[in-house]
Structures are given as structure tokens and as C-alpha cells.
């Protein structure tokens, strides 16, 4: 398999964003995933979100682990630096990258095997630390790349293709993310772009650890009857708690809603998250209630989606560590090296 370059002809009527880029400028190489794979829709949503946010592509770094899902960063933002690291360890690589240069936007892309099985520890710890990033798990309940074994997010009792039932309890990543103190937690579905794109945009504008669990059916190994990660199952059991509109600096904020039906949250950068409440009176700012809601609704067989929790005034790792404003990678000898005189004093104290 070699790289397939896309023809880059430009339609004169393609819409451009504030930077003069078209949606095309946010694309990457042609995907080599199975036709119909949920992961490709998520790549499309990432492209759309970055386009709409007027993000300079080179100011975003995309990092991933290993898996079909972790391959996808090749298929979007072709002008951005990317890092396909090792299985289950993307969070540590992203954490290091973020420590080195706090000025970029960090997008971590992972799979359910990558994050909930081999990488569960790193998943939890990078959220605890409040690494400023968007962390998307493309969750299909199986290991796609190694041909369909159950992953740790497969529901207990879910059936594999041969009809065998998964005996183990599932890891629920959004619940774990809440417990770990993630300040932005969402779940969505690769088949629901209208819901997913605003969630990615909001997450990119969030300061702190933002996690999106995106159900993303594997058409090759986990889209059959009896699977709880199939297109049909998720469509039937999808229980969205809210619908999100994101208003950034240049958007005009409209106000055509009924009193009491929306919740507005202003993030640190001024972006406004308007949540239209659906059904129950859901408060996305209360992590304890969110956890209880997730647990009770999932027990009832529902797939809870939407913006599950957001803390607007969140701090990130750099704020907690009190690092300098400038990227650490930009500092030079003058700023880093104490010099010969300081060393002479150190020597003197050691005699």
C-alpha cells in the first residue's frame, strides 16, 4: 500500500472560511479503511469542524495509537504534523508534545482497544492531568485491525459474528472520564454528523482535557444483529441529552429559544455553547449528576449521547504546573542555561 495523492483541483465556487481555506484544504490522503467504516465519517466531521473553526491546519497536531481508528489521522488535515505512535500509548506522547509546545491544538485519535484495553491506564491518567486536548475514541466494540476480537467496551452479552456472547462487563469510557476529572465529556455517533461536528468544535475550543466517545460501527466485524455497536442498534437506542450549537467569536449569537429550554455556557476563550435540552432536565455542568444519569440510562439499555459534562472555567496541565507562557520548545540557551558563574557557585558549595 502506498500513498494515494488526491487530485487537488479547486472548484471556484467552494465556500472558503475566514482564512481563505476551503473544506478541501483540511482533507488528507484517501482513506484505505473498509467502505462504510464509521471511522471515515468521524474524519469527515473533524474536517468539517476545523474548517468551520477557521483553524490554521499547521497549528494542529494529530496523534494516535495503533488500530484502524488510529490510522485515520492520515485521512484528514494533510498539512498538519501527525504521529501514529504505539498501541495504547498515544496519551503519553500527546502529553509530552503538549508540554513542549502549549500553543498548538492537540487532537488525539484512538480506538476502544487502544484506549480501553491496552491503554486504559494512560487514558485515565492524561485526563486526570488535565492535558489540553481533544481526545476522540472511535468506539466500535472490537479490534478492527486485528480482525474482530471483542474490545473492553463491548457490552456484556453482546454477540460476536458467530453468535458467541461477550462474558465480561464493559468499560464505559465517558463514566471513567467523569471520574478522572475530565472537564469536557461527550458521546456521539459517527452516523450523526449534525450532533458530532458541534461537539468537536466545542471540544477544540475547550481549555483542558476534552473527551469524546464516538460510537463508530465496524462494518467488517461488528455490525450484525446482536451487536450493541451496530448502526441499527445505536440508531434505535440513541438517547441524546441535549443538542449543541457552538458560537465562536465571529458568529452572531441568535436568541430564538423558549425560556428554560436551553443552557448557555461560556468557555474561557469566549466561545458560547448553547445546549438545547432534550427530554429530561439535564444539567451538563454537574459531573456527579451526569455520572448518575449515565449509569441509570445505560443500565436501561440506552446509548446516552450529547454533551454529557462541561466545566467552563477549567484549568489545564500548564496552568497547574505554572509553566511559562512561551512554548518550552522555543526557549534557548539564554533562557535555559544558568551559565559559568552560577556553576562556579555550585562548585564552591560542594568543596
Amino acid at each position: 500500500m502506498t500513498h494515494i495523492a488526491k487530485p487537488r483541483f479547486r472548484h471556484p465556487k467552494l465556500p472558503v472560511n475566514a482564512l481563505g481555506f476551503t473544506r478541501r484544504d483540511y482533507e488528507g490522503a484517501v482513506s484505505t479503511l473498509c467502505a462504510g467504516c464509521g471511522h471515515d465519517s468521524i474524519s469527515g466531521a473533524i474536517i468539517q469542524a476545523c474548517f468551520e473553526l477557521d483553524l490554521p491546519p499547521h497549528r494542529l497536531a494529530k496523534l494516535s495509537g495503533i488500530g484502524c481508528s488510529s490510522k485515520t489521522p492520515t485521512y484528514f488535515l494533510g498539512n498538519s504534523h501527525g504521529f501514529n505512535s504505539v498501541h495504547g500509548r498515544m496519551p503519553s506522547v500527546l502529553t509530552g508534545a503538549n508540554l513542549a509546545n502549549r500553543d498548538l491544538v492537540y487532537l488525539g485519535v484512538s480506538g476502544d482497544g487502544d484506549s480501553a484495553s491496552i491503554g486504559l491506564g494512560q487514558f485515565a491518567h492524561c485526563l486526570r492531568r488535565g492535558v489540553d486536548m481533544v481526545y476522540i475514541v472511535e468506539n466500535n466494540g472490537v479490534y478492527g485491525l486485528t480482525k474482530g476480537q471483542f474490545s473492553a467496551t463491548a457490552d456484556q452479552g453482546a454477540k460476536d459474528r458467530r453468535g458467541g456472547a461477550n462474558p465480561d462487563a464493559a468499560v464505559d469510557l465517558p463514566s471513567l472520564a467523569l471520574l478522572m476529572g475530565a472537564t469536557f465529556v461527550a458521546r456521539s455517533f459517527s452516523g450523526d454528523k449534525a450532533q458530532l461536528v458541534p461537539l468537536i468544535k466545542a471540544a477544540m475550543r475547550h481549555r483542558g482535557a476534552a473527551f469524546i466517545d464516538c460510537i463508530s460501527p465496524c462494518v467488517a466485524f461488528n455490525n450484525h444483529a446482536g451487536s450493541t455497536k451496530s448502526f441499527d442498534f445505536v440508531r434505535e437506542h440513541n438517547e441524546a441529552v441535549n443538542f449543541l450549537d457552538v458560537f465562536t467569536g465571529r458568529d452572531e449569537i441568535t436568541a430564538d429559544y423558549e425560556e428554560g429550554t436551553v443552557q448557555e455556557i461560556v468557555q474561557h476563550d469566549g466561545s458560547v455553547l448553547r445546549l438545547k435540552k432534550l427530554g429530561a432536565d439535564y444539567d451538563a455542568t454537574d459531573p456527579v449528576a451526569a455520572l448518575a444519569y449515565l449509569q441509570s440510562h445505560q443500565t436501561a439499555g440506552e446509548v446516552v449521547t450529547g454533551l454529557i459534562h462541561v466545566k467552563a472555567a477549567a484549568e489545564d496541565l500548564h496552568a497547574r504546573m505554572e509553566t511559562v507562557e512561551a512554548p518550552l520548545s522555543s526557549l534557548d540557551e539564554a533562557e535555559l542555561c544558568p551559565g559559568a558563574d552560577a556553576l562556579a557557585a555550585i562548585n564552591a558549595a560542594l568543596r
Partner: protein
Amino acid sequence: MPTMIEAANDFVVKFANVNGSGSASANRLFVRSIIRMGVPVSARNIFPSNIQGLPTWYEVRVSEAGHLGRRGGVDLMVAMNPETWDADIAEIEPGGYLFHDSTKPVLASRLRGDINLIGVPLTAICNERYSDPRQRQLFKNIVYVGALSSLLGIDEAEIERLIREQFRSKEKLIPANLEALQLGRSYALDHLSGQLGLSVERADAVGERIFIDGNNAAALGCVYGGATVAAWYPITPSTSLADSFGSHCRRLRGEPETGRKRYAIIQAEDEIAAIGMVVGAAWNGARAFTATSGPGISLMQEFFGLAYFAEIPAVIFDVQRGGPSTGMPTRTQQSDLTACAYASHGDTKHVVLLPGDPKECFEFAAQSFDLADRLQTPVFVLSDLDIGMNEWLCDSLEWDDARRYDRGKVLDAEALDAMERFGRYLDVDGDGIPYRTLPGTHPSKGGFFTRGTSKDRFARYTERGADYVDNMERLLAKFETAKALVPAPEVASAAEATGLGVIYFGSTAPAMDEALAALDADGIRLDAMRLRAFPFSAEVEGFVADHDRVFVVEQNRDGQIRNLLVNEAGADPDKLISVLHYDGTPITARFIAGSIAARLRAADPAQEAAE
């Protein structure tokens, strides 16, 4: 009456203490006062893998001749731990001395007839002076230092000065410490004069040297070398490297205007995460390192392979301890050479630096960041518990303010604009080292996808065998380039031409210096080469080729550096004779000289008969 060992500025004192009793700083005070008298000292901690209540020893060698390796044998035992009393007494040389707390009488059955007893009623003195049990315990240590200093003739003024320096920021503690010191000194003056045949006499053999442990020196090297990201997971004997980096940074790396930090230190959830963070930070342009020991090296293997193959600079300090597994966590060894030189799966080879003392820990630490950036590859700095956790007397640390960091082949936006086409893995200069770009540099040029899977010269995914081989061959060419960049070996030639050589490295250095002198005195001449890095330069090959027999001295079981010499420097295995010491204690000159002399006798019985 037993005989009395008589020695000035040439003896071994061993302190047997209970871990956590506060003895460490008192023992250190004792050692530094001798150094202030101008007499070289080496001091080694021997401690168990427990925090409190277990035995710990501090072995001090006083040597005006400057022999800083471990000597073996004890002339004066300071027996402060009843639990280890019998074993401690057994170690004393005939005619040596036992310094003990004489508050309670000692049973004659638990003594030896051929050693001399020096008793000070430490408990009684402290119980009379102090009522607080904690003070009784702590000041007992200072009281014995006072008594010893008087017996040995250490200038009182030197100790007083040290106490004042030590408590500069806690001045209230100075008078109490000085008083405890006097309690010991005056008891010794009044009751013990003439009982000890050992003495410290003022000399001029220390010069500008400093007393520092390798981990502290390496941490300083990281500060001076421009490291900004440290990620680590606690493990003896490397922990103090990360700790020292933190304390040096707090003092030296604040942004003056804001007090904000020009560094980030993360205590990771495990070693895999630690090296992952280092790799991520280095990929993104920061100088980053981790500090660990053998078990951590094992856990980091997959990332080493990724960093090698994706060509990411990373610095790894391995402060070696006895292995395998949890091994001997508080004992020293040089047994991770193979694990580091060939770390990870697939065909990998790594740059390994081998500091021989704390000063080189400083220098190699700073240099490792230049090498990693220049070569775009992981660089291992291998010290061990002996260098890392013991203070050594070594030359002052030096820094040239004109020195600039070598950030290697990194293209900025201007360079990208000026070039036709960027290829991340193109060998433009013919040295095997490609050019790299950092994320965020240019809006439309230089972006690429870093991966551990195979790729072509333009960083595009490929599974073509020819592309894979092309890349692997270039990595070998890069390794060739490394040979000229890493620290060169140091050679000390014998006084006259000889067919015998010896190769050694790392913490073996001081014992080797002394062994060479001893062997020379016995008419055995050896040319000596101290290796300072892997890969080996042509000089190393030449050294083996130029000698008939070469002893290879190392502190591991399997002759790991010897294997590397055979594998990587084309050395003739029949010429290489291993001298191996790996019981966890630092190697001694007696062991080296004895082993080499014995091998020579065994190889040439005629010579023995002639003697």
C-alpha cells in the same frame, strides 16, 4: 595487647548505622571535614531496600595518594548498630579498631582479641544532656563525630565551619550542633588520647575538586544542557536524579519577571508513560529526558524502537542496579549494557554513553541532548548506583558560556520556503542524518506523518521491501556517523611497550587506576583503555588489534561489553579475557589486580616457577 595499625591519611573507616537514625548527615560531616583538611576521601553508602530500622553502612576510604576506589577491609569500625555487631566486628583488620557506645559493658565473648576497643558512653552522655528522645538520638551522631574527629586529629575549626555552612538557613540549629560536637571532642580528649593509631594530617591533595554524587551532577547537566521536559517514575537508584533536577530547576529556571517555570516535570504513572512523554516532547522540539533503572528500561522497550525508527531524539538515564527482575535494587552493577545497546524489537542499535565519574555524568548529560538532537535518536546515559548515589571527589564542573546547543538538522519556515521539496527521510548530506521539521512551523510546507511503520524517504506509508531496506541501511549509516561524535575512549599507556591491554568503563575507573599502579609495581605492565561510549570508534578496534591479550573488566556476569566488542568492533574473542565482578558491591583494586595477576600466572606457569 593487640597490635595497633598505625596510618596517617591512608585508612578505611566504616560506619555501621541503623537506617533512618539521622546518621547520614553526621557521617557526611565527618567526610567533608577530612576533605577540608586537604585529604582525598571516597565514601560509599551500603543500604538495604528499606526505609527505616534496618542496617545501613557508610564506608569511608581516606587516601592521600588519591585512591578513590573501594579498598576492602576496615581499619576502624564505628559500630552503632547492635543488630550487625558480630558481622561488623568480623570485618575489622587485625590490629584495627572498634569504636562503640560503652554505656553498657560489652561481653568479652562478643569481641575479638586482635582488635583495639575505643569506647565512648554515647547514650549516657546524650541522656544526661538531652531530655527529648529525638534529640538524644540525633545528637548522638554528632557526639560520635566529635569524638572521632578529636581522636583522628581533624581540625575542629573545619568541622565548625561546615556546621555553620550546613545550617546557614536554619541558624538556630548551629549552637546545639556545636555543643554536641564539643561533648564528643572533650570526652575523647579527657579519656582516650593515644588510643587510636590512625590520623588525618593536613595535606594539599584535594585542590579544587568537589564532592558530588553522579545523579546530582547529571541533573545539573540536564539543566545546563537545556532540558525542559522530564518525565519519570520513581525507582532506586535513579530517583535522586529526577529529584535533583527539580531542585536545581526551582532555583535556576524560574522566569525572572513572573516566577513561572521554564521546565515541566511529570511523575508519570509508569515508565511506559514516562518514555512516551519524552518521545512526544522531543518530537515537538523540546529537550526531554527520563531517568530510570533496569526494570524501567525493560518496560520502555517498545518506545525505544519507535524512537529509533521514527528518528526522535530522547535522552534516557539508566542508573544501573543489580538485575534481573527486581534484582538487587540497592546494589551496584553494570548489567544493562546489552539491554540498552540493542533495546527493543527488530534491528535496533543505540548510542550509549558511559560516564566514569560524576563530572562525566554532568558533561555527558549536557552532551547527550546535543547528540540526540544531532543524530535524531535515543541516547542512553548509563551510570550505576556507585556513581549515581555516592558522592565522589572529582574535578570541578565546567561550562563555557560561548557554548551553543546543537539542535541538529531542524528546518524553519524560511528554509522550507527556500527548498524545492522536503523529504523527512532523505539523506541529503550523505551522513545518514535526515532533516526534520517541527509541528506548527509552516502553513503549507514540511508537514509529515510520523509513524513506526515503514515509510519512504518522503514519510509516506509503504510496505515495499526495497523502501524498508533503504531506510534501514540509512539508519546504519547514521550509526556510523555517531562513532565520530560520541566521547572518544581514553588511553593510558604503560611505562614501557607491552602486549597486554585492559579495557574498562564507568565506575570501575578509580579501582582500575589503583590496580594499574599496583600491577605496575609488581612488574606487570598494561596499556589501559577506558571506554566512554558505544558505538565504538576505530580506535577501539585498533587497541584490541595492537595487543596480544586484552583483559575486559566489567561489573556483570555475562561479559556484556566484551560481547559488544566482539559483535561490533570485530575484536578477536580469543584475545579478550573477562574479569567480572558482580556481587553488588563496587569493584576493588585488590580484586582487579589479583584477578589479572592470577590469569597471567595461570596462562604462563613457567613464569610463576621462575619467580
